[in-house]
């Protein structure tokens, strides 16, 4: 195998962080995600998942260790470029969609990058096409269904043409159809994806590789199928498959 000349989309090394009140949330996290990979970050509530995500685009800055996005370290002077490269999709789409119409919301990111006029319009339409919602462009976000809002939230980030898409609990509150539609969209994207979730079947459906974050460190890193088949590992980190679910044999 020849080594990939491109730097990994995301490289985190020895990342440690304590909140100002002294609570230590991360105790040395190491991980690397290659370009084009779809990886699930699994972990129980309180494992530090959100804290880790906040480091990826510099909202929190590392107490110790480094975060690099496509070779660029997250530092105060690189924040603007880092935030273009890392597309964060928040759990509640109402937090993410803050503008009066879908068009303005999707345009917010690229407009902050300095795009205007035709080029901006092209980006907005392309992003909405990629999530299959070109028709909602002039609607206000609060008139969309929850599933549509989550997809528009993905579009707001895609419009910035990120290096890596980071999704926080993408399947939460979605009905089964919306969940499947979102999975199809995520599969169709050609960007690196890091999916933070405790929805294990969804991780298995979308990601070949999984990381388990527990107690502020990466406790396991391997093929999703192997991790979900390891009942002792799951139990040790408060992860559980839903009732009646077993990892299907063979490749899905």
């Amino acid at each position, binding site marked *: 195998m020849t080594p990939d000349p491109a730097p990994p989309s995301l490289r985190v090394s020895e990342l440690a962080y304590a909140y100002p009140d002294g609570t230590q949330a991360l105790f040395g996290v190491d991980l690397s995600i290659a370009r084009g990979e779809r990886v699930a970050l699994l972990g129980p509530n309180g494992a530090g998942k959100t804290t880790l995500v906040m480091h990826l685009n510099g909202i929190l800055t590392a107490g110790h260790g480094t975060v690099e996005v496509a070779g660029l370290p997250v530092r105060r002077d690189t924040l603007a470029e880092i935030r273009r490269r890392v*597309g*964060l999709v928040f759990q509640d789409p109402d937090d993410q969609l803050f503008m009066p119409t879908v068009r303005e919301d999707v345009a917010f*990111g690229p407009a*902050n990058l300095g795009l205007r006029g035709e080029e901006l319009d092209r980006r907005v339409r392309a992003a909405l096409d990629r999530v299959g919602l070109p028709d909602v462009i*002039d609607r206000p976000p*609060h*008139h969309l269904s929850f599933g549509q809002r989550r997809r528009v939230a993905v579009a707001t980030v895609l419009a910035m043409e990120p290096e890596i898409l980071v999704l926080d609990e993408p399947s939460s509150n979605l009905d089964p159809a919306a969940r499947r539609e979102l999975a199809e969209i995520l599969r169709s994207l050609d960007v690196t994806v890091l999916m933070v979730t405790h929805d294990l079947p969804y991780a298995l459906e979308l990601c070949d590789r999984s990381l388990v974050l527990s107690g502020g460190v990466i406790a396991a890193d391997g093929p999703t199928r192997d991790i979900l088949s390891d009942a002792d590992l799951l139990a040790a980190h408060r992860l559980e498959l839903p009732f009646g679910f077993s990892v299907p044999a063979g490749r899905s």
Partner: protein
Amino acid sequence: MGGGHHHRLFRHGDTAVHRLPPQCKLVAVAAFAVVVVATPREAFWAFAVHAALLAAVAAAARVPAGFVLRRMAVEVPFVLFAVALPVIGLGERVQVLGLSLSVAGLWAAWNILAKATLGVVASILLAATTEPRMLLLGAQRLRLPSLLVQIAMFMLRYMDVILDEARRMRVARESRGFAARDLRQAPVLARSAGALFIRSYERGERVHLAMLSRGYTGEMPVIHDLRATARDWRTAAVLPAAALAAAALSWSLL
């Protein structure tokens, strides 16, 4: 679905008034209000001219009188205050329908009522012909303090979300047998209001993070081409200019 235009103040239309850029209309209404306030209260005819001008704008925008009248309810507190003035006013008194009323109070009441009514009607016409978010874009275009415009923008976006949260909290209260009958239940409602405030505050923090994540640096990017032509400004100027002419004439007649 055309979607999204359930604001009770806005009335769809495609008239010359609707089409004017929002910043022109904002300036026109503000200038009109200043002229109205500057009109001497003794010049009854000048107020008739002002009212006729607004009627002409309403006709041009195809806003029916009933629509405007119903929305004038916001003026009620002023009316109550104005009605009280002649009764509690001091000085020379006159007999009207068997009531002894203060002359100065009557003048003050007329002054407040006439000017407030004209201002309220002008604002209602502005709101009826301009979508709320366009108003804010116009304000942004006029370089009003950007922080205030942004706060208003978020209020517009999150009003429904917060009302929805308030409704869910009410349902949760009532499902556990709560009924607000009298003042004794006030502490519960106060705590609900506090919880709602904290939730909204936390949402504000999350929204801010989402904005930072997409490159927000303190300014909202202006992506709308809202340029107004000289002709737009001339059209918008008709209302305040005509009112100014009437006011100027009334000053010279004093």
